[in-house]
């Protein structure tokens, strides 16, 4: 089973803890990224996520494989939404289990940081004034530059 999933359906209904539970694991760290009602001083009403699924899953799994190389962790599961989301909906949920909490925190933060700059997923924000726009995160722009220059 893949441990990186793209889902067009609500991820609130997925039991992510069950996917990484082991009897050896003392520390479980979860990141739950939700739609907030503003971004860079603009009021957001709702948004859409689009994913290039075939490559997103490959790249997501590569990031998780890198986390297993870097950190002494037990299991990882990550799911990212596509489609229409409202304020408060979960856009991404990520869980890491490990013997100790420190490695679970480090691995969880590593994976979500890499996901944001590497995985081909896009966000179209809709604002209270009726306009909308595709969001460019500043980190990923830098990352692309870096790739080009190196």
């Amino acid at each position, binding site marked *: 089973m893949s441990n990186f999933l793209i889902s067009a359906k609500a991820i609130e209904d997925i039991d992510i803890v069950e996917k990484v539970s082991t009897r050896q694991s003392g520390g479980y760290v979860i990141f739950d*990224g939700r739609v907030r009602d503003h971004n860079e001083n603009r009021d957001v009403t709702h948004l859409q*996520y*689009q*994913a*290039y699924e*075939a*490559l*997103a899953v*490959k*790249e997501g799994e590569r990031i998780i494989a890198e986390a297993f190389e870097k950190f002494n962790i037990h299991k990882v599961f990550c799911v*990212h939404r596509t489609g229409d989301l409202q304020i408060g909906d979960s*856009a*991404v949920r990520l869980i890491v289990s490990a013997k100790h909490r420190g490695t679970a925190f480090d691995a969880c933060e590593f994976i*979500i940081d890499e*996901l*944001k*700059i*590497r*995985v*081909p*997923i*896009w*966000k*179209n924000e809709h604002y209270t004034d009726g306009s909308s726009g*595709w*969001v*460019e*995160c500043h980190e*990923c*722009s830098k990352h*692309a*530059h870096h*790739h080009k220059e190196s």
Partner: protein
Amino acid sequence: MNTYHLQYFSLLGDFTKKSCETLTSKASTPSELYAEIEALYSFSHGKDNFRVAINDEFGEWNSVLNDGDNIVFIPPVAGG
């Protein structure tokens, strides 16, 4: 002339008003193909900060394309 299968995401979907299409083209690299798409759909956004995928793997702008390749131009991502 090669045949390429393209998918359009993010603002490229807005520019082309399509999510995918198949094109016959004499472009032999992603760079050339991107320039052709800009001309075809009359936009001029440039590809700074873009990446390219060839057959569902990250590729290079100057890779040599083969007939039947699947090409995706990847604008800056914003997941999470």
